[in-house]
């Protein structure tokens, strides 16, 4: 009860000098607004990245061929990955969950007069497991489709709607190809994904057995990329090492020569981006830290002014029975309250700023103000208030009542 009354008393004194008190907290307002604004942008960005990367599948890495160079001159070709590599990785590595070869080209799909531009992806039956793809109609590729070079295909949701409208697609024969088209039978339609993955819009894919894609559609022996999925996050590094060893032996790369392939781990890219973000966050946090220090000095200044102005009042309070500790607490509550108020304004300003950035960028940059950031900012502001109030409060608490009552 006593403490509540002290707080009410503090509010009353603050209200008497509201504008002055708020101006004193300008530093806190700016500091907190900077933290909130920066965190909102960073969090929004990270959420975007997270969504994109989640679409790439969990614990999935992709092996791409590279041009191996020696003394600056290219000595290999882009055609370094073959079906035999897939077999070797499957047989010789530990911690492998799934493996799928990939060929991808832009082509077209036709059904009578209807025509749609699509991404044709040749892969195997394990692809669906890797990217958690489900079908809304029919089924995905299976082992025998792939081994039998069957001319079957699974349509992305949009493709199916484009070619067949609302009528069922499974069992229909469509024509698929890049320049010349070949007949393929539809065996399934993918569920609507509505998100972009590493292959472009997942809903615009047409997935065919890689064997059929190689022989019938693209006429090539090599494969574009191999995606592998590790058992878990922890085993990704081991799997990477195994794949490297296997492929180097298979590709007859001598010790000291560079790999003719690259293993891209989205996790690593994500980490790099996050490191970059963290660096920017540090810059923002440093700026806001400086602002908070400036704000703290502002509050200390205004509290010193307040203590001097209210010397007589303090004298009276002591005369009627206030203890040193009571006076100390009263001024600490005042300083932390104005700082908290400044922090609240800062949160509002920062949120408004974040919102404005979202609007101005036509929702290109989405922002998220996390509750934890708000809580932390307010705690920080309050701590700043308390710390900068300590000296003035001590000064007030240690006033000699006789001197204070005489003060003009």
């Amino acid at each position, binding site marked *: *009860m*006593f403490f509540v*009354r*002290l707080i009410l*008393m503090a509010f*009353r*004194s603050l*209200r*008497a000098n509201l504008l002055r008190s708020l101006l004193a907290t300008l530093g806190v307002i700016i500091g907190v607004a900077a933290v909130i604004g920066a965190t909102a942008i960073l969090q929004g960005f990270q959420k975007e990245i997270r969504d994109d990367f989640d679409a790439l599948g969990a614990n999935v890495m992709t092996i791409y061929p590279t041009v191996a160079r020696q003394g600056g001159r290219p000595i290999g070709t882009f055609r370094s990955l073959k079906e035999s590599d897939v077999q070797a990785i499957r047989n010789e590595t530990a911690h492998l969950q799934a493996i799928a070869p990939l060929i991808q080209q832009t082509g077209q799909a036709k059904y009578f007069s209807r025509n749609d531009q699509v991404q044709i992806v040749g892969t195997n039956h394990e692809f669906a497991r890797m990217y958690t793809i489900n079908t809304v109609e029919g089924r995905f590729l299976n082992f025998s489709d792939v081994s039998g070079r069957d001319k079957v295909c699974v349509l992305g949701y949009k493709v199916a709607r484009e070619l067949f409208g609302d009528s069922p697609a499974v069992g229909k024969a469509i024509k698929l190809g890049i320049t010349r088209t070949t007949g393929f039978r539809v065996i399934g339609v993918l569920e609507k994904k509505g998100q972009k993955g590493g292959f472009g819009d997942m809903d615009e894919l047409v997935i065919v057995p890689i064997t059929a894609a190689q022989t019938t559609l693209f006429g090539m022996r090599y494969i574009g990329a191999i995606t592998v999925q590790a058992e878990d996050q922890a085993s990704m590094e081991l799997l990477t090492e195994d794949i490297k060893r296997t492929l180097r032996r298979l590709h007859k790369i001598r010790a000291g020569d560079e790999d003719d392939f690259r293993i891209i781990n989205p996790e690593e890219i994500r980490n790099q981006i996050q490191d970059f973000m963290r660096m920017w966050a540090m810059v923002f946090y440093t700026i806001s830290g400086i602002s908070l220090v400036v704000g703290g000095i502002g509050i200390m200044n205004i509290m010193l002014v307040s203590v001097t102005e209210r010397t*007589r*009042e303090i*004298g*009276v*309070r*002591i*005369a*009627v*029975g*206030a*203890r*040193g*500790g*009571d006076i100390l607490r009263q001024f600490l509550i005042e300083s932390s309250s104005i700082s908290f108020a400044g922090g609240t304004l800062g949160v509002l300003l920062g949120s408004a700023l974040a919102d404005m950035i979202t609007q101005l960028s036509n929702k290109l940059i989405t922002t998220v103000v996390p509750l934890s950031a708000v809580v932390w900012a307010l705690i920080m502001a309050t701590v700043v208030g308390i710390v900068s109030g300590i000296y003035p409060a001590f000064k007030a608490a240690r006033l000699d*009542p*006789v001197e204070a*009552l005489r003060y003009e």
Partner: protein
Amino acid sequence: MIELRQITKHYPMGGVTVRALDGVDLDIRSGEFLAITGASGSGKSTMMHLLGCLDRPTSGSYRLKGQLISNYSHKQLARLRNREIGFVFQTFNLIQRTSALDNVSVPLIYARADDIRHPAMAALERVGLGARAHHRPSELSGGERQRVAIARAIVTNPSIVLADEPTGNLDTRTGEQIMQIFHELHRSGVTIILVTHEMDIAAQAQRIIKMRDGRILEDTQVDDELRSEILERNLRVHAAATADEVHTGTTG
């Protein structure tokens, strides 16, 4: 009630030690109405600060209700001031930004009382200001402000009320009204200690302590005869001073 023995109070001031109080012995009985007078620099203010437990003596002993308080801690003194002593100042010393009621509540807050609204209101009603409880000091007249200050002084039911020139900033008629309140308090059993240099105010007390150079010069019990004598003398002095002003043209 109050027992001062060989009280001294020394201040260092510009390298010189000022003996504000220089061996004071004084006994005040419970329920007395006492006036302390003297010229400025006589030590009457220091006396009031010591009696009010706002300051501690350099040497000597101070007993209040039998308790030796001259070596109490700051915290103990704060408690004592809160419970036993009420202060009334010449300049009222009200907190300007809050209402009369809030001003009167302040001692109760520091007493950590559970109920502050009712006793504060009761104290205001006792000084006849119940209707002005929610006015701010700036909206009150001088006399009303001093009555708020008196309400604040008595809100914790102290046994002693210390008043430092309580009528000094008021006109004669208002001053007289304030004095009536002190008389009423005195009748209800409160010990009243009045510090003043106005003899007609001092003459209203039962006992007058006259101070000079940090010592008690005179300690007089006032009976009705003496009271009228003081007032008469005062009137003469006043008349002479007025005549003097007319002669020299000073306004005093």
